[in-house]
């Protein structure tokens, strides 16, 4: 479990995060949602430790990130997997090379064990025949899956995903979501997904944190999101015509 307490962050004197507190449960897909520019990426970067918040604390299963020394932080890093918006695969490595990379650096496994583990992860994301391909030779959806395979190679306790669906078609997007959800439940990982894709919200949103203008405006799940009183959340959720229709339908259902 990851817990953020009263996180505040300033850039050039301007406050972008205002006392955000949130809990992200293990074995669940935790979503951070919000409009572009709402501060959700900054919040996620604070959670990972890429940015240092001026105020507040972050606890990884009760361990305060602020109080960790550099060795403890380095050890914690090996427990974290990250899926970047643009996949962030190493261009000069093949699919296999990318997945093996964290194993080579940190696992202490023999070469054969590394290969077995990498093949297992690649096969887990359904890319058995892409071992020798370079990132530029595979599609965006496949790149995302390779990035997931790399992120889970070291059996992480925490998995962070920054807009995993961006640039993907709806079908591939759902496939990536389902994969993340399956992996989270299978290994009991604390997964935090940063997204503004409503399909993801409804598909895998077991715990949702809505960030609005740098503040935590609402928390809930995919069941309660349609019944929220938050105007900002409603504006966000029902921005598209499709979801306005869904809302009308649901309201009729509730009336019945």
């Amino acid at each position: 479990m990851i817990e953020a307490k009263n996180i505040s962050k300033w850039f050039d004197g301007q406050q972008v995060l205002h006392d955000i507190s949130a809990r992200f449960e293990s074995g669940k897909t935790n979503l951070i949602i919000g409009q572009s520019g709402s501060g959700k990426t900054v919040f996620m970067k604070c959670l990972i430790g890429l940015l240092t918040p001026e105020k507040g604390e972050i606890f990884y299963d009760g361990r305060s990130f602020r109080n960790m020394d550099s060795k403890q932080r380095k050890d914690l890093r090996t427990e974290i997997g990250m899926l970047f918006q643009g996949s962030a695969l190493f261009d000069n490595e093949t699919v296999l090379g990318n997945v093996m990379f964290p194993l080579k650096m940190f696992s202490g496994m023999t070469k054969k064990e590394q290969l077995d583990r990498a093949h297992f992860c690649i096969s887990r994301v359904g890319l058995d025949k892409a071992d020798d391909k370079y990132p530029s030779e595979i599609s965006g959806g496949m790149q995302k899956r390779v990035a997931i395979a790399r992120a889970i190679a070291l059996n992480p306790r925490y998995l962070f995903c920054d807009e995993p669906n961006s640039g993907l078609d709806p079908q591939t997007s759902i496939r990536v979501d389902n994969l993340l959800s399956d992996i989270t439940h299978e290994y009991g990982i604390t997964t935090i997904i940063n997204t503004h894709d409503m399909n993801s919200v409804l598909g895998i949103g077991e715990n949702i944190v809505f960030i609005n203008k740098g503040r935590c405006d609402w928390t809930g799940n995919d069941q309660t999101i349609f019944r929220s009183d938050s105007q900002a959340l409603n504006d966000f959720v029902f921005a598209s015509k499709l979801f306005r229709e869904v809302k009308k339908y649901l309201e009729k259902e509730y009336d019945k």
Partner: protein
Amino acid sequence: MIISSIRSFGRYCTFMTQVFRFPDKWSVFGRNMLNEISKLGVDSIPLVIIISIFIGAVITIQMTINIVSPLIPSYSTGLATREILLLEFSSSIMSLILAGKVGSNIASEIGTMRVTEQIDALDIMGINSANFIVLPKIVGFVLFVPVLCVLSMFMGLLGGWFIAEFTTMISVENYTYGIQSFFNEWYVWYGIIKTYFFAFIITSVAAYYGYYVSGGALEVGKASTNAVVSSSILILLADVILTKLLLQ
């Protein structure tokens, strides 16, 4: 301007303290370094050969045309060609040329890694990204650059020999006698020592510009240009200082 230069220098020094740490894994470092030697050093050999041969030939022609006095011995052409190549061309000018090729390559590669979040990915994994990416480039190129320097000296002299052999401007005997006359071995070492410093400037400055890119493709291009301009200026400055220190 002055404040921003001081700030950049401070950031460069901080960056270097991150770069010069013990690698997380020596085996990975060794393999990366060999890759960099191949990519930055070995791949530069054709460019060094071509440029050196032509410049050597041009220097020989220029010397032959301009040194026309009965008071100056005819072997002076070979001697002057050799001195120019050893003292300045194969170290300083070749380094300026390599700053264009190697410097832009490093800055654009690292800059692209930055904007595509590959550097963030390394940081998240707990890897010292500056050390992991940059140290093999610096060490690899610094180790290999004397090879390029000596090769350039040899090819430059060969270029002059072609002029002697295939034209009637100067005889081969005079040219070969000239390039052997009054030979000072220290000049070769002087050239090699200078290239060590220049190689460090090229790789570290280019890596610095690439590492701190923010934005997109446009900024990567700008970083690449800035890296070449800055390293060229620093090479010229270092050239003056090293010449004063090593030759006086």
